[in-house]
């Protein structure tokens, strides 16, 4: 209905391969970015910025990392939280020990460390597949958490294992208010999402998908198995590492190993499943859903409380949340295995064909 595509023909391959070939999509994306970068920091109130939008972006980045590994390269992983932990703690150390480095290079280096750990724990994927690989990544999850708690240097010998993110400045501007933290996160996530989109639509992405769909055929046409799988683990862990660093610096402020438990890995996995396996947009939709849903639930329960006059305990709400989450996962897997991204794609297809059904 909203699309007016006639007249938008492609006369060069560059035009044909762009991310948003339809002008209406480009306009919508530009508007969205404008709102995100300008309107939200100015108008958004502290609570929305610090408690909803920033975590949404951080989780979206983590989901992006996991989606590259599970959605595009087909390697199931339950160790996302571990890579985030490595990212967070290494960032802390880089900022602590090499202050002249600046915030962005420290994040990148933290990401690279996470990527290194990712490659090490990606080695088993060369010989084992499917569930066996998932359980192997669990090993990484527990090992990393154990190592962080045992190895004093990482937490700068803090007795409780808790570290507080230092004050950070970017090009001289202090990053301390919710708005500035939000903007830093947004900038990093936007750049990395664009990089991921470009990667997935070029040779690397195709190699990932080839390995996912039929690895025998992929190796026969010359795609190097080991290099591709380890690259997938490296890139995915880099994204999770940076997400971990942001999780510590722009969202929580103080973080300890217990914040990166298996539960966090599951949350990110849910975002990828509900959002849409194998789609960049899916990561954002999934992250939005998982972040907004509990808030929606608490608002609903408060409304219920006032309406019915009964008191709903906090425990009840959290139990309900867990049941509904689990139920939604099952519901989505049955109704639309490819998640919200697929539903959005179908809607967009219908809009382009409007008023015709086919």
């Amino acid at each position: 209905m909203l699309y007016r595509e006639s007249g938008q023909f492609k006369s060069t391959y560059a035009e044909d391969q762009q991310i948003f070939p339809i002008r209406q999509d480009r306009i919508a994306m530009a508007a969205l970015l404008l709102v995100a970068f300008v309107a939200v920091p100015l108008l958004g109130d502290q609570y929305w910025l610090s408690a909803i939008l920033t975590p949404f972006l951080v989780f979206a980045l983590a989901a992006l990392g996991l989606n590259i590994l599970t959605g595009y390269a087909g390697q199931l992983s339950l160790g996302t939280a571990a890579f985030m932990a490595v990212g967070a703690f290494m960032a802390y150390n880089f900022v602590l020990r090499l202050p002249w480095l600046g915030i962005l290079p420290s994040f990148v280096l933290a990401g690279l460390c996470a990527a290194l750990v990712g490659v090490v724990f990606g080695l088993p994927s060369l010989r084992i597949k499917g569930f066996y690989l998932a359980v192997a990544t669990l090993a990484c999850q527990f090992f990393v958490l154990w190592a962080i708690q045992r190895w004093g240097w990482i937490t700068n010998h803090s007795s409780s294992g808790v570290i507080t993110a230092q004050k950070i400045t970017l090009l001289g501007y202090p990053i301390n208010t919710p708005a500035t933290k939000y903007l830093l996160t947004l900038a990093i996530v936007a750049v990395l999402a664009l990089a991921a989109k470009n990667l997935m639509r070029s040779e690397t992405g195709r190699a990932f998908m080839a390995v996912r769909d039929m690895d025998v055929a992929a190796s026969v046409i010359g795609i190097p198995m080991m290099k591709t799988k380890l690259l997938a683990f490296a890139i995915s862990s880099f994204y999770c590492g940076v997400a971990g660093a942001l999780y510590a610096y722009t969202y929580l402020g103080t973080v300890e190993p217990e914040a990166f438990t298996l539960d966090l890995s599951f949350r990110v996995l849910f975002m990828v499943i509900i959002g849409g396996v194998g789609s960049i947009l899916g990561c954002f939709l999934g992250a939005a859903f998982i972040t907004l849903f509990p808030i929606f639930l608490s608002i609903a329960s408060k409304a219920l409380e006032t309406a019915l006059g009964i008191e709903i305990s906090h425990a009840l709400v959290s139990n309900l949340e867990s049941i509904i989450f689990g139920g939604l996962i099952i519901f989505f897997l049955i109704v639309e295995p490819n998640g919200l991204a697929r539903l959005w794609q179908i809607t967009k297809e219908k809009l382009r064909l409007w008023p015709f059904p086919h």
Partner: protein
Amino acid sequence: MSGRTIGEVTLSVEGVSLAFGGVKALSDVSFDVREHEVRAIIGPNGAGKSSMLNVLNGVYHPQSGKIKFKEKEFTDMDSHEAASLGIARTFQNIALFKGMSVLDNIMTGRNLKMRCGILQQALWLGPARREEIEHRRAVEQVIDFLEIQHVRKTPVGRLPYGLQKRVELGRALAAEPKVLLLDEPMAGMNLEEKQDMCRFVLDVNDHFGTTIVLIEHDMGVVMDISDRVVVLDYGRKIADGVPDEIRNNQKVIDAYLGVAH
């Protein structure tokens, strides 16, 4: 077949034996393939035809014997190396990437020719963008050649069987191979689709000069388009020669009609 010249021996197999546990798939098989030739491998079901092909491009590793290709000797071929040497193949039951479109499937055939690093690709810099376009142009030639323009952007899983076979041939062609291994390219096709596929195979051999190693059951097709034929039975080579010789070779007839061994 037609006007082109058949060159020297480019690919040869000497004394290859392959066994899975007790089952002897190939025993002491030797034959050669010349440049620009259409070489057919025939034989009753289970004769070891597909296994031979899988040995040639490194999916199976023979227990003994040598493979010579372009003056290089291999005791067993590794599939990645076979691909970089210019050996491409299609599979008996289609091995396409279901999660991608036709265009992307054929583009994966170009992966060996793409050089850009992940950083260049991530930032979609000049060289990466130019490389993507240049390879897209080459793939469009293949799409035009195989007349599948109308399904260029459809996910491969939705295509009918005949078209999927063509897309798989397209992916192999996109790698611009020296030798093309075709594993029953016309299995399960109707008359019209078979004629199209024969035309494509002959055009590939004639236009690009690609050497073709073809496994096919349809004797009509084999006798029409192949220069030389090697016949396998129970993993052993029982005949090798020009189609006419093979047609009235008693051993071949027995093999097909099932005379007791």
